[in-house]
């Protein structure tokens, strides 16, 4: 069965600095999709970025980028120029067939 591990329960970053959130996963599948979702205090799940496993190029979305290492089964999220509004829980998710498997989340604090 697939598993997703986020080893950092909490991270802090100074405003305007860069932070990297870690995610590793385990799977025997060769074709799959990975996602990072943001959950602010409102608890709405908001998509941050998506990566298709068959693509070698790392996905980028404005200040958000990933470091996807397929062989190592690692999918970290880098947030550049951190803003106060980035403060939230961040969940890494693996899409297996028709469902998401989520990690336990990393709470990101942004310090002014």
């Amino acid at each position: 069965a697939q598993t997703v591990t986020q080893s950092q329960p909490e991270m802090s970053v100074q405003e305007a600095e860069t932070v990297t959130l870690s995610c590793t996963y385990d799977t025997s599948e060769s074709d799959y999709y990975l996602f990072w979702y943001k959950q602010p205090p409102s608890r709405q799940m908001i998509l941050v970025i998506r990566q298709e496993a068959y693509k070698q190029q790392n996905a980028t979305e404005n200040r958000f980028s990933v470091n996807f290492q397929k062989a190592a089964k690692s999918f970290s999220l880098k947030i550049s120029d951190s803003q106060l509004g980035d403060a939230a829980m961040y969940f890494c998710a693996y899409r297996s067939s028709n469902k998401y498997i989520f990690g336990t989340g990393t709470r990101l604090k942004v310090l002014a």
Partner: protein
Amino acid sequence: EPEVTQTPSHQVTQMGQEVILRCVPISNHLYFYWYRQILGQKVEFLVSFYNNEISEKSEIFDDQFSVERPDGSNFTLKIRSTKLEDSAMYFCASRPGLPSYNEQFFGPGTRLTVL
């Protein structure tokens, strides 16, 4: 921009009562999902629904749970006899049919409190 909506935002019920959580997925989406998040824990998959039937369900989704798409727009989750441990945030999500990489779009969630 179209979005998934859920009602109610907060439901309080007594243990043993039936509850129905409602969701309106995005109109042209074909796949529908329910997830649950117990406070402070990760989001867990409950069930997926496609072509008017369950396509996959988790161990959590036992006989106390059922889903229905009664009228082509609503997608409901029913818990027949609620238990204290059913207290959680319940998220509905939907996804278009194609392309296959499309992400799931989540609703704002319903907080269920079982007393």
